[in-house]
């Protein structure tokens, strides 16, 4: 009994490991001391709400980490790094994949909630998908999903311009809220399907551009109470920015224009336009002259 209680107390604070990735601008960049972020205390409905309303105009992974550090609750304890009772975060993401074909696909994620989290009585699982450049989520599509009660809440932050190609756009973040009940802990898995769409990619001689996904950031939060604007919500940090190198790489190959086509495409496009214009011009002038001749004969 005492052992169980100690285990429960120690698992209040959860360690999140992020392993260094190969590129600093990829999703899933490791943070050397991210294990010190235990829980957040936020007063907004969404964790990301205040990120883009401050000085940040685009998503940067290191700035995001600093942002989370500033949202930390002041009363967190730092657990022992060698405590064997702390369950590693890698067990949370069971499965991650991009499914579908073409420019409109779904990012599937299965999350395993460990029964010990039930003791914290935090009722909302919050998932932050920091999307890579090259893909976007349609806020209006997500709204209609929310209306069908698939998520309890969802919002897109960052660049929500759906029309720009990737080389003229910035990254965006999708924050998803899912209500969790004791049944979810028994069943063991929560599955999420996030519809995503491809932007037009930078030109590439291979004809395809690869977009790679890291892992989402996971939090377990107390429920947001409507109209209690200044009440702080506590969010337990489950996982932040897991590197794609630790898990199976999730990627999406998107068709891209081929630079080698440029010259002859431009030349033939203009040639076609000129040829068509001349055809219509000649037909118009000839038709006009034929009508004049006909009327002259009739007179």
């Amino acid at each position, binding site marked *: 009994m005492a052992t169980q209680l100690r285990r429960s107390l120690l698992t209040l604070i959860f360690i999140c490991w992020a392993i260094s990735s190969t590129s600093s601008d990829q999703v899933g960049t490791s943070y050397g001391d991210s294990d010190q972020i235990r829980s957040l205390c936020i007063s907004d409905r969404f964790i990301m709400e205040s990120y883009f309303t401050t000085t940040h105009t685009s998503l940067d992974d290191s700035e995001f980490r600093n942002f989370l550090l500033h949202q930390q609750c002041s009363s967190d304890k730092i657990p022992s790094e060698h405590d064997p009772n702390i369950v590693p975060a890698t067990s949370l993401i069971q499965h991650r994949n991009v499914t579908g*074909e*073409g*420019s*409109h696909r779904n990012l599937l994620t299965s999350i395993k909630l460990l029964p010990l989290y039930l003791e914290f009585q935090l009722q909302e699982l919050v998932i932050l998908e920091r999307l890579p450049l090259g893909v976007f989520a349609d806020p*209006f599509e997500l709204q209609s999903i929310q209306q069908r009660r698939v998520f309890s809440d969802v919002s897109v932050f960052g660049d*929500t*311009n*759906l*029309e720009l*190609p990737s*080389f*003229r756009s910035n990254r965006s973040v999708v924050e998803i809220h899912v209500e969790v009940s004791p049944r979810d802990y028994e069943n063991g898995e929560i599955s999420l399907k996030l519809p995503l769409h491809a932007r*037009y990619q*930078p*030109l590439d001689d291979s*004809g*395809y551009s690869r977009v790679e996904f890291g892992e989402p950031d996971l939090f377990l939060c107390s429920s947001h109470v409507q109209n209690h604007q200044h009440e702080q919500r506590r969010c337990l940090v489950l996982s932040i920015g897991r590197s794609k190198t630790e898990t199976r790489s999730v990627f999406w*190959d*998107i*068709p*891209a*224009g*081929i*630079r080698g*086509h*440029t010259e002859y*495409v*431009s030349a*033939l*496009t*203009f040639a*076609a*336009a*000129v040829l*068509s*214009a001349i*055809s*219509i*011009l000649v*037909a*118009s*002038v000839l*038709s*006009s*002259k034929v*009508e*004049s001749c006909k*009327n*002259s004969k*009739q*007179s």
Partner: protein
Amino acid sequence: MSRGSENTDDVPPKWMSFRSLLVFSMILRVFLIVYGEWQDAHMEVRYTDVDYIVFSDAASLMASGESPYKRTTYRYSPLLALLLTPNSFFHRSFGKFLFSASDLLVGWFIHTILKERKVPEKICTYSVMVWLFNPFTFTIGTRGNCEPLVCAMILWIIISLMQGNLSQAAFWYGLVVHFRVYPIIYALPIILVLDSKIFRSGQKPPLENWNTGQTKTPTSNTEKKTFLFNLFTALKSLFSRERIMFGLISGGVFLACNAVSFYFYGHEFLHEALLYHLTRTDPRHNFSIYFYHIYLHYEGQFSAVEKLISFLPQFTVQFALVSCFWQDLVFCIFLQTVAFVAFNKVITAQYFVWFYCLLPLILPWSRMKLKWEGLLCIILWIGAQTHWLLWGYMLEFKGLNVFLQLWVAGLLFLAANTFVLVKIIQRHRFSPLFTRYESSSPKHVKKLH
């Protein structure tokens, strides 16, 4: 369509009367709107156009006192959002009913215009059916696209001109250009047709009827000089009273609408509702031959010379069509619209409605037989579109790199448009909308009271 004096053979059966067609069309559209609501609620693929959701959201923002431009991708006049504010407090389908009613109104206007020009009833009916029973037409309004509103306004402008109502024509012209920028291309032929020898304000101008072609007086034949001479004489009297009035009224309405919109919504309105359409280049795939060229150059910038060169074919075609056909106003604006869409930097399917509403107005004057020349044109045009859609499907839904094939399909679509346009020109029986005053008998001149 062959000509002849109207007799019992020219009268369609009762079930095909215009009134019956209109009632049936109305029932069909109501059914589609109701069905659309059901599909939206029960199926993953929505019936409603995504643009309608944009309009409704913008209208809802306006109804709550905010700017409609807070809704991303809302690129229309605030008037549209204002028209759809009942969506928020009455029913979300109000806008669809409004657009479908406009669609039926277009059918009514087509019938009115053709009857004014004494087209036999049977030919009128068939022409109206080309609009009312075109699957593209009856789905576009019921899905919530606003183009039928624009079409109705343009046809009303034609009717106003035919009735000698210059100020009304000018008012609606200013409004429609504010609403949707593209009708600006009609400015030159309308101005040219307001020649004081043809059109006098306050008088119903003499119309050239459908039967008139065989009964032209020698005087009227000698009036038909070369197109260059006609253009020269028209330009000589450029600053006639009617032209100045039309310019002032339409320009005034256009500026007033823009000023009011700017007062309420500032630069957001200017950029989203006007400048965006004037400068739009979209690298994403569409029917235009320019899309891949734009995508391949999108990382850089086009020089001013390159932009000018790309505009030249469009400008040349528009000028040629106006110069040759301005007297046959309806035919002229039909050709201009087809050419404008075909040579545009961006082509989406909704643009086709712009000339679909004018097609029934030129069919009675076409010598093209459905078998087999007409069918060939239809098959080529639809075939080229279908071919493009096939490659579009491969790119967008299968994720294959088929940009080159898609671009070639765009070239073929331009070729099909050109072929159809040339055929229509060759088979058209030129018929000016108005006859000249000095050549017509007094009975054709009616004073407006």
